């Protein structure tokens, strides 16, 4: 029973809590014991605050009891009593915020991120700080300064990244849902590798106030969940314009779950695009076969499948590693050892403090990206690298918008391979190429979702990516939900 609770969806748990058969405190207790039981092997969490989580759960139970006593709806809030984990780059007031970096060891958030405040308003329990590649730079969670997270489906393998802790926690039953951030695939790729749903909303859909910045023209907060319906519930809670993030867009927030359900009921026949550029060299045959099988399921549902062309796809990784590193070199300039973060004790003057604190605080991948980004922005190289990359970005985005004139959504593999072994991709470029199918979505600012679509013979999860049109998350979730309704791979549990 206790383990079942840890693998239930938000809607299942809400029904139990609405009926009075389950309390939020019992649910939180079950998730805490599960975490204590398995996290020694998974290491999804950087830290968690058991006392605080249980206090939040009891407060949730009191809200429910008060609503019931008042004769109202026991479930006035969409996420009442649901434990949601946080990638350790999103601020929760009073809790640690490390970005899995020595630079921020010991830092405590002075305020809530907007997504945090909105989750609290929706009744959710803020649960645990989840591991990541340092400052969200990486695709395996091996770049964390505090330890490597294991894939719950094979402990010798990586969970993907950079939001590997969030994906692994949901996959291992240590959180009902979790927030992550996605700059080049950091939600979708680990979701695919861990057999969970991972949603990256449209750029501007969700406020980033209180998110540690990596590459500001690409970063977007999104969610990991056990089902497409759960992802819709979390998105509905966190989306919307925020005056504290001027890049958040003033587009109304619909009821995503109800909207997707309406599409399902109407039996809408989606026009779905397949881009040959996403099925070329480097694609693992078993991943390719599983994605083809998923496309056949859509065909069986009556969807119209057609080929689309995204000719600039091969330039996406190169474009990304210029733009993302340029922006990171600027964003990470704030870590100077003066007002917060690590300060070197070997320093004597006020300038040296920058050089030494940063040398001590940052790990190798962060340093590499700061150097690369500083270089492509430096005098004499800006036009050749940064400006050229921004122009290629225009062409990549244009490819997608032209395709969307003919199709509602595009289907691709999420990752070219299933989870790889720890230490297997020691070469940075090999690691970067792992993001080849997810990066274009960020450059174009589109919403994308990864959903489970099968397993390899060795038992490793495979993800299907659905790419949607800007601000049409309802349609994206409906397309994803149509497949999930036929092939519910996400309900499988790893043996731990």
């Amino acid at each position, binding site marked *: 029973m206790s383990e079942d609770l840890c693998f239930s969806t938000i809607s299942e748990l809400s029904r139990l809590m609405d009926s009075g058969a389950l309390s939020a405190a019992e649910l939180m207790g079950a998730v805490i014991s599960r975490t204590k039981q398995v996290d020694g092997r998974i290491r999804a969490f950087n830290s968690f605050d058991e006392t605080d989580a249980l206090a939040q759960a009891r407060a949730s139970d009191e809200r429910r009891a008060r609503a019931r006593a008042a004769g109202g709806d026991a479930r006035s809030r969409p996420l009442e009593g649901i434990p949601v984990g946080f990638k350790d780059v999103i601020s929760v007031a009073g809790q640690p915020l490390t970005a899995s970096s020595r630079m921020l060891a010991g830092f405590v958030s002075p305020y809530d991120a907007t997504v945090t405040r909105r989750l609290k308003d929706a009744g959710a329990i803020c649960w645990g700080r989840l591991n990541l590649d340092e400052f969200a730079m990486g695709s395996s969670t091996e770049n964390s300064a505090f330890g490597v997270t294991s894939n719950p489906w094979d402990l010798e393998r990586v969970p993907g990244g950079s939001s590997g802790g969030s994906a692994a926690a949901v996959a291992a039953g240590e959180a009902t849902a979790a927030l992550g951030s996605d700059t080049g695939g950091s939600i979708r790729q680990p979701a695919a590798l861990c057999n969970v749903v991972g949603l990256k909303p449209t750029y501007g859909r969700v406020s980033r106030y209180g998110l540690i910045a990596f590459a500001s023209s690409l970063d977007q907060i999104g969610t990991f969940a056990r089902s497409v319906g759960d992802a819709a519930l979390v998105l509905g809670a966190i989306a919307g314009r925020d005056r504290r993030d001027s890049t958040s867009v003033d587009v109304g927030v619909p009821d995503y779950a109800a909207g997707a359900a309406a599409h399902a009921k109407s039996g809408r026949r989606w026009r779905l695009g397949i881009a040959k550029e996403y099925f070329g060299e480097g694609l693992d045959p078993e991943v390719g076969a599983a994605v083809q099988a998923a496309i056949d399921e859509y065909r069986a549902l009556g969807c119209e499948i057609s080929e689309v062309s995204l000719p600039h796809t091969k330039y996406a990784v190169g474009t990304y590693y210029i733009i993302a590193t340029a922006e990171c070199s600027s964003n990470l300039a704030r870590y100077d050892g003066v007002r917060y973060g690590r300060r070197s004790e070997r320093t004597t003057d006020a300038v040296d403090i920058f050089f030494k604190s940063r040398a001590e605080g940052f790990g190798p991948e962060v340093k590499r990206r700061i150097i690369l980004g500083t270089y492509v922005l430096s005098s004499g190289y800006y036009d050749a690298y940064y400006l050229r990359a921004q122009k290629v970005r*225009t062409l990549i985005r244009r490819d997608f918008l032209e395709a969307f004139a003919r199709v509602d959504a595009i289907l691709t593999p999420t990752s070219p391979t299933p989870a790889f072994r720890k230490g297997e991709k020691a070469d940075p470029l090999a690691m970067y190429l792992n993001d080849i199918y997810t990066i274009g979505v960020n450059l174009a600012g589109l919403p994308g979702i990864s959903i489970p679509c099968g397993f390899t013979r060795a038992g490793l999860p495979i993800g299907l990516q659905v790419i949607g049109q800007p601000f049409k998350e309802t349609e994206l979730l409906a397309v994803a939900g149509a497949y999930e309704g036929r092939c519910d791979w996400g309900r499988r549990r790893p043996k731990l």
Partner: protein
Amino acid sequence: MPKPQDLKLDHIANLARLDLTEEEKARFATQLGDVLAYVAQLNEVDISGVEPTAHAFPVVNVWEADVPEPGLSVEDALRNAPARRGSMFVVPRVVE
């Protein structure tokens, strides 16, 4: 397009205010050389007449009324300071 060997690590590390060890310089030179050789393929793309994209959905002129409101308290702002004295951040001496 510049060549990968144009990357002068001492100069760039100085711009980035980041001390690198000799070992890091040697390793980064090789690794970033590979990355720069890879991104050189962007030279193949015809970008004539193409406008750069800075943000996928440009949002311009987001105005806010200039009204003071409560922010972080001094105590909250100083809580993560590496060194403080009273209500101030302490840094090494700047002026001789």
